[in-house]
């Protein structure tokens, strides 16, 4: 029984710890201890899950003792386990960094329970095997993220959170509507069972509408082109540790949901696609997002806003992988997701360290950091080069894999898509080198400034993620193999050993 139960630990641990930290609200030091232990335990649970699933067999846990598809299930396959582990690493880095950034006042305001609640929601979304359950985790993620963004109750935070909340609720509405229509048409919400039910079915109007509604909701939550403006309008107002966690986790969860919904349920790229016409739309969304976000990033002078636009730009590469409708494209997107989770968080955390050292986020007044903090500068350079796609860091391989998959997919627009991706990569490098020259390389512009030290906890948090992107880049072969297994497993949902293919539903005939 424990074997099956392993799938739920990455959710239960943070959820239980969230309740515990809520009770310890008056004792910030104790709260912090519980939170750190919980995050470490969560990472261990996720790593165990990964070790168990690498063979390609999914762990399925059914709630309430009902058989599928009647029960709500948790399904841990390679994709879920890999992303849970990455989320665990991100959470650990943020927890370490928060030792120096989140003081007793913020902890009394509820940092620990909200952060743990968000982690539980993220892992829940990764592990659930039920579409409605996925929606519920998304809402928990939104609610906790709103609490975190407004932790200091500043005017800008309230304003940013208001925009974030309104847009996300809109997205959730579309998602729920899509889920409702899908249920009305198929009579099931279990992802595997949906996949089996829809395979080879003639698309009806309801199915197409449901697919596009889900797309609208998920595109909004993932922060893609026409609907990403809430993200740079709110992330820069949050306390920096929190902005880092949001940047690393939330949009990627939405992309993960895109993978599950469009590859597994709607059979994109598996030969049994239910709704046609999606890949070109995905490609268009990806290309537009890349160009718009990177150009907007170049115009920024606030480091947090600059990175927020890069968060948007990097999700577009994930979408590009998905738009190829091939197993290779999916594998590349999965590898890219892990890479971008680590690097985005690392960049936001280093922005926090940078502001601590220099007293602000404004590029126009920053300077002289390489002289004052040479070791931190190296760590930042690793992350900045990784996001720009310089070998041997994971960013290079991520871009190389996506572009390689695009050429191999043989779709007609692949050339254009690759061209846009390369131009965006070049502009990202440009944006990062501007940041580097202004904040690090040039001498300090303001007179009378005293160089402030960066706390060790901050350096350790950033170093953990820089080491991960370097390690992922060096251990590229096993990483690519794992992402291939994940992509194969994702696309073959209906024929998995644990998949449901023969169970009927209780739905009456129409």
């Amino acid at each position, binding site marked *: 029984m424990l074997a099956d139960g392993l799938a739920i630990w990455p959710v239960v641990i943070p959820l239980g710890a969230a309740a515990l930290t809520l009770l310890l609200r008056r004792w910030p030091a104790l709260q912090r201890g519980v939170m750190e232990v919980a995050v470490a335990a969560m990472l261990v649970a996720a790593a165990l899950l990964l070790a168990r699933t690498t063979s390609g067999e999914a762990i399925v846990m059914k709630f309430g003792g009902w058989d599928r598809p009647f029960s709500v299930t948790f399904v841990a396959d390679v994709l879920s386990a890999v992303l849970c582990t990455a989320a665990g690493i991100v959470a650990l880095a943020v927890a370490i960094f928060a030792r120096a950034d989140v003081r007793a006042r913020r902890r009394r305001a509820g940092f620990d329970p909200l952060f743990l609640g968000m982690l539980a929601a993220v892992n829940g979304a990764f592990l659930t095997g039920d579409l*409605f359950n996925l929606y*519920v985790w998304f*809402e928990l993620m*939104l*609610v906790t993220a*709103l609490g975190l963004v*407004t932790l200091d*109750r500043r*005017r*800008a*935070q*309230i*304003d*940013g*959170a*208001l*925009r974030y*909340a*309104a847009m996300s*609720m*809109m997205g*959730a*509405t579309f998602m*729920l*509507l899509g*889920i*409702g*229509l899908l*249920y*009305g048409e198929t*009579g099931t*919400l279990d992802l595997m069972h949906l996949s089996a039910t829809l395979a080879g079915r003639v698309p009806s109007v309801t199915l197409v509408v449901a697919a596009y509604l889900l797309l609208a909701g998920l595109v909004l939550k993932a922060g893609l082109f026409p609907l990403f403006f809430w993200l740079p*309008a*709110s992330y*820069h*107002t949050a306390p920096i540790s929190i902005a880092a966690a949001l940047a690393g986790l939330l949009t990627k969860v939405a992309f993960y949901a895109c993978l599950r919904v469009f590859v597994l349920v709607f059979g994109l790229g598996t030969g049994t696609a239910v709704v046609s016409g999606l890949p070109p739309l995905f490609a268009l969304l990806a290309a537009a997002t890349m160009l718009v976000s990177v150009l907007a990033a170049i*115009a*920024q*002078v*606030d480091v*947090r*806003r600059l990175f927020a636009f890069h968060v948007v730009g990097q999700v577009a590469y994930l979408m590009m992988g998905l738009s190829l409708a091939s197993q290779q494209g999916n594998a590349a997107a999965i590898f890219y997701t892990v890479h971008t989770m680590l690097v985005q968080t690392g960049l936001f955390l280093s922005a926090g360290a940078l*502001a601590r050292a220099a*007293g*602000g*986020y*404004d590029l*126009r*007044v920053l300077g002289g950091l390489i002289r004052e903090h040479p070791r931190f500068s190296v760590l930042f350079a690793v992350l900045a080069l990784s996001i720009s796609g310089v070998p041997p860091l994971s960013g290079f391989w991520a871009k190389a894999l996506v572009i390689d998959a695009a050429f191999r997919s043989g779709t007609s627009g692949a050339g254009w898509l690759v061209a846009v991706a390369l131009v965006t990569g070049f502009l990202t490098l440009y944006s990062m080198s501007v940041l580097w020259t202004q904040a690090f390389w040039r001498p300090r512009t303001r007179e009378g400034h005293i160089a402030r030290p960066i706390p060790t906890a901050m350096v350790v948090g950033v170093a953990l993620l820089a080491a991960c992107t370097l390690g992922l880049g060096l251990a590229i072969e096993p990483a690519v193999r794992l992402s291939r297994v994940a992509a194969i497993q994702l696309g073959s949902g209906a024929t998995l050993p644990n998949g449901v293919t023969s169970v*009927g539903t*209780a*739905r*009456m*005939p129409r």
Partner: protein
Amino acid sequence: MSVLYAFAAAGLFGCGVYMVLSRHVVRMVLGLSLLTTAVNLVLFQAGRIRTAQPPLIAEGAERLGESADPLPQALVLTAIVIGFATTVILAALALRAWRGHDTLRSDELRSAQDLGNPLAPGPDVDH
């Protein structure tokens, strides 16, 4: 019956969208709660509107008879609770925004936009 029901849901949805497009935050909050309600109606319809018979499968039968599918009703209950929670949070945010800005017109709420705005005249230093 179903057609009438669908038109009611569509009407609510239209009203919700109209309200959401407003520049005033309170109207937007009300619009979002209307949208949530409209979606709940659609979810309810996914289980079909049938007779008041209990949703029990007769012994030996493979399928449910004339009664409605009970699962969407459970989904609607969950969705109502979630919608209520998010609406309350949004309302609380709106209240805080009103206290901090003395306005609830979304084009006059500019504090997030002004923070680190590249078009602002001078470099601002955040502490």
